[in-house]
Each structure stands twice: as C-alpha cells, then as structure tokens.
C-alpha cells in the first residue's frame, strides 16, 4: 500500500515536470530558451521516474535496468544540451568553431 502511494507520488511529480517542460519549450521563441526547458526532463523528471518505477517493481534486475536507463538519460542529457547550445552559438557567430568553450 505504502509502496503504491510512494510510486504514484513520484510518478505524478515526474509527469508534472515533463508536461510543464514540454509546454514551456513550446512557448519559448529562441533555441536557447527551449534548451533550458529540455534540461529538467532528463535531469529531474528522469530520476523521479526511475525511482517511481523501481519502487513499483521492487528491488531486482528489473529495477536495476530501469535505474540504468534513467542514469544514461541523466548523464547524457546535459552533454547533448551543451552540444546543441554550442552548435547554435556557432551558427549565430557567438562562438567560433575553434573556440574551446
């Protein structure tokens, strides 16, 4: 019973963040603004979602796989957003392709 309540609470929080981020990205006009709204989906909603799934299924190989998926998303998300932001900055002339940062 408690496991179901905790799992549903984590799942609801995760869904709320995903939906708000998606709507926020939709309302932003610039690419940089949209990128700011993409970040919470992988870094905040992802771990919450993985925790909800792990609590729901119980500790085992399935929970390990679910945690592995959200860890991959949480680690790769910021890297991809930085790469996309860098490409946009180069396209706008803010950064040169040779620039290290």
């Amino acid at each position, binding site marked *: 019973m408690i496991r179901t309540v905790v799992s549903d609470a984590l799942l609801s929080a995760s869904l709320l963040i995903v939906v708000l981020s998606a709507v926020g990205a*939709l309302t932003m006009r610039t690419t940089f603004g949209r990128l700011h709204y993409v970040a919470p989906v992988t870094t905040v909603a992802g771990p919450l979602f993985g925790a909800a*799934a792990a609590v729901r299924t119980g500790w085992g190989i*399935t929970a390990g796989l679910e945690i592995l*998926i959200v860890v991959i998303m949480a680690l790769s998300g910021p*890297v*991809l957003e930085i*790469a996309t932001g*860098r490409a946009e900055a180069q396209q706008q002339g803010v950064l040169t*392709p040779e620039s290290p940062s």
Partner: protein
Amino acid sequence: MNAWIAASAVLLVAGLGPALVVGSRGDGIARLVGLQLASPVAVFALMAFSVGVNQPSYLIVPLVLAVLNVVGTLVYTRLLGPRA
C-alpha cells in the same frame, strides 16, 4: 487501465505532442531541440508501458533508444553546426 498505462498515454499526448510541434518549426538546430525533448519523453512512455503491462523484457526498447539518442543527437549537432 492502471496508473502506469495512463502515465504512458499522458506522456504520449502532453509530452510527445509539444515535442513534435517544437521539432517541426524553425531551422535545423531549433528542430533538433524538439528531437532532444521527444527522445526522453518516448523513453519514459515506453518504460511506463513496460511497467504498466508488467513485462520487464520490454525495457530493452527504451534502453536501446536511450543509448542511440546520445549518438544520434551528437551526429546531428556535428552535421548542423558550421564546418570548421
């Protein structure tokens, strides 16, 4: 319908829908942001469906998508950015 299948439906409608709209407007990099939003939402929707139908073997699909998303997005940033 349990909570997880409902969550999968919510993600497909309220998460993937806006992501597809973002991915269909603007220049290449602006569309790439839509793809970046769509990929984790699709991963979560597939995970929620797997939990909802109680089939752990289905988790291989979001796992592969999560890994391919990294490579695919980096390739797009390389191709869409200015050439050195």
